[in-house]
């Protein structure tokens, strides 16, 4: 027996092959995966000194992509003139900006070390000073308790679920982009996303969907995501795909095991 044959017959060989195959699949997968991309941008309200400090922060952390005067660099990043403080607050507080690399979409990620409410406010004040734009909403504007979840649900279904799914679990868009899961988004961030249209998301301005209506949508989103799943584990709340997987993997395997147990033979010595 050659050494290879010996290896092939080793009791662990089948597991080794399995692991090797899995590794191959994994590598093939990584080849297809999209890496993250710079998106549009960022925002706050503030005083004059905020603007100055914000400008300094901007030059340090943002200007390499968006240009020294936030005018944007063609092919790299869009202009930030007129995006407003709300956009800055959304992008920076969710960790999307500064972007790590240029993929199809900038994902939510942990904030950078220099990012804190104070620095975001200053950065926002600077960007706001460049050309106006949507402001960061006030506390009351995003208070879910003041909203009407029923009404908000109707608006949510009309405007949001086609990308974000019934409960905000997210979904796929074209060419590697995706609508993110809303579970981690704070009410303020949800509001800001609607008025600024970050990345591929369209804008829902306040004159067509009023601030009260937006607050109701926030009320619906937060109430549903906090709601317990009465029927057991929610299976990601993404619909029949996971249900089918559970039926086959858990249900059918359990029954196959039961069948094997019922019919198992004790082999007699003959």
């Amino acid at each position, binding site marked *: 027996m050659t050494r290879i044959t010996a290896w092939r017959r080793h009791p662990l060989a089948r597991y080794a092959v399995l692991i090797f195959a899995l590794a191959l699949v994994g590598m093939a997968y990584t080849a297809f995966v999209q890496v993250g991309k710079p998106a549009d941008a960022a925002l706050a309200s503030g005083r004059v000194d905020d603007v100055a400090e914000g400008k300094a922060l901007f030059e340090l952390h943002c200007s390499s992509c968006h240009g020294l005067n936030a005018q944007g660099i063609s092919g790299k990043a869009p202009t930030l003139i007129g995006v407003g403080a709300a956009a800055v607050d959304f992008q920076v507080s969710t960790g999307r900006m500064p972007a790590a690399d240029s993929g199809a979409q900038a994902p939510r990620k942990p904030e950078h070390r220099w990012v804190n409410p104070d620095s975001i406010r200053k950065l926002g004040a600077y960007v706001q000073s460049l050309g106006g734009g949507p402001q960061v909403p006030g506390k009351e504007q995003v208070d879910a308790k003041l909203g009407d979840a029923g009404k908000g649900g109707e608006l949510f279904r009309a405007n949001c679920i086609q990308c*974000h799914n019934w409960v905000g679990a997210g979904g796929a868009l074209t060419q590697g982009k995706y609508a993110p899961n809303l579970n981690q988004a704070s009410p303020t961030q949800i509001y800001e996303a609607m008025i600024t249209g970050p990345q591929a998301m369209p804008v829902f301005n306040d004159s067509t969907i009023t601030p009260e209506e937006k607050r109701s949508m926030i009320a619906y989103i937060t109430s549903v995501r906090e709601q317990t799943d009465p029927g*057991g584990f929610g299976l990601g709340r993404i619909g029949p795909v996971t249900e089918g997987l559970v039926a086959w993997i858990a*249900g059918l395997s359990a029954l196959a095991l039961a069948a094997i147990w019922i019919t198992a033979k004790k082999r007699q010595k003959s």
Partner: protein
Amino acid sequence: MSELTTVPKAIGGPSNFLDERLGAGNFLKRNLRKVFPDHWSFLLGEIALYSFVILLLTGTFLTFWFKPSMAEIAYDGSYAPLKGVMMSQAYASSLELSFDVRGGLLMRQMHHWAALMFVAGMTVHALRVFFTGAYRKPRELNWLIGVGLLTLALLEGLTGYSLPDDLLSGAGLRITEGVAISLPLVGTYVTFFLFGGEYPGEDVVSRFYSLHILLIPGIILALVSAHMVLMWTQKHTQMPGKNRNNHNVVGAPFYPAFMAKAGAYFLFTFAVVAGLATFAQINPIWLFGPYTPADVSAGSQPDFYMGFLEGALRIMVPWEINLFGTSHAGTLPLSVIIPALVPMGIIMTGLALYPFLERWVTGDKREHHFAERPRNNPHRTAIGMTAITFYGVLWLLGANDEISANFHISLNVTTYAGRVLIFLAPALAYLITYRICLGLQRYDAGVVSHGVESGVIKRLPHGEYIELHTPPHEDIEAHVRGKEPVLMLPAAPDSAGIPPKGMRGPLGKLRARMSKAYGGEKIPLGDGHAHGEGHEEEEHAAIGAGDDHSLTR
């Protein structure tokens, strides 16, 4: 602990009553000890059977509350986030079932899980029957009934899925409408008749309701009974093994052992369905909202058994033909018709015709009562794997948006990959399966001709080390030796060089060639590695007597 010596009165009395009126004794005498072969895979069909029973039970419970009406009402039930929302009565009553009836949610979820297990059980059962050739004569009729049942199950699932009238089920209904209206010539008629006018109308839920709870389950029940009766009269197939042949059936008697096992398996199925309904939420309609044709959610999906149709629709290319230009007729939306009809047609027609095609190719008119091991008919097994791969690729692509969203692969890449894989993967599956089957046959031949590895290493006088082989356990050997060559048509021309009747003409020649490829013995059992046959015999004798534990797992 005493044992019975006479039939107890409580049983004897009614039995006597029945026997005097029905002659039930004759039937029981024949059937109480009916033999059922034991193999775990023979129980897979029972999953579907018992799921159907559960569906009837839970479904009846649901009908007590469900209102199949599309009349619009403002919701006034317990579920707060939908309070005051306009919705159909069907949806409102499904919400009532979920939140205002004790045990209602459990029953709804059990019904849905049982539906998934019903189709999944049928699928694996059909695969078991296919891969073991258990559809062969005399069981072709039962196979056809099975194919009919599978089709009806899909229809039953489709109608049931649409009943709650939530936003997800409505999306499914809309796609159903889009497919129906695309049919050439009759499309508009079919949809206007089905929906009582324009889509969605106010009738489809009540119409689907009567189909779902009366007509289709009635037919299914009748076919299931026929399926059972045929199985009972024809007796179950068995795996090859010791003492087994094509003219007998070996196994446990129906009463008491098999009856108890079957009863236990029913309870297991029931328990698994109940367990899933307890711990895994299914179809949370309250999250979806009421149906409106104006909205749809990301990740709208059918239940798994419709996934292959969804996948076919997704990977299709945008083809549409207007046969007569601008005149009001002749539009063929191929990007709907092809994916909606062709894969379903290939799979269902293929399933239905396979026993007859195989018989036509092999010329095998014998009765078969052995469950053939898949490796011993490599072409059939390869064809089966090809079909599974075809179905599997479509099924997978039916979830490509979820795959894209959760694994961050571009949606477009998944579609392009699907368009290639749908042709490439089945072909590869065929080749690979065929090779694996031959390899396993070779392994079997090895086991029969020189036994299995014993784990004992022996040093020969001249210094060579060899591993001793030990003869297989007789059960295993009988199992392996149950192999029969696949029959071939006698295609050799006679002395005058004229091929036999039926082998002439292009079709006949094709048949002869297919028969030659499909049939025959690929790796005869005697054909192991024939080295050192002589001294291995001795070693068998040397260790065979003492220790054969390595085989008796």
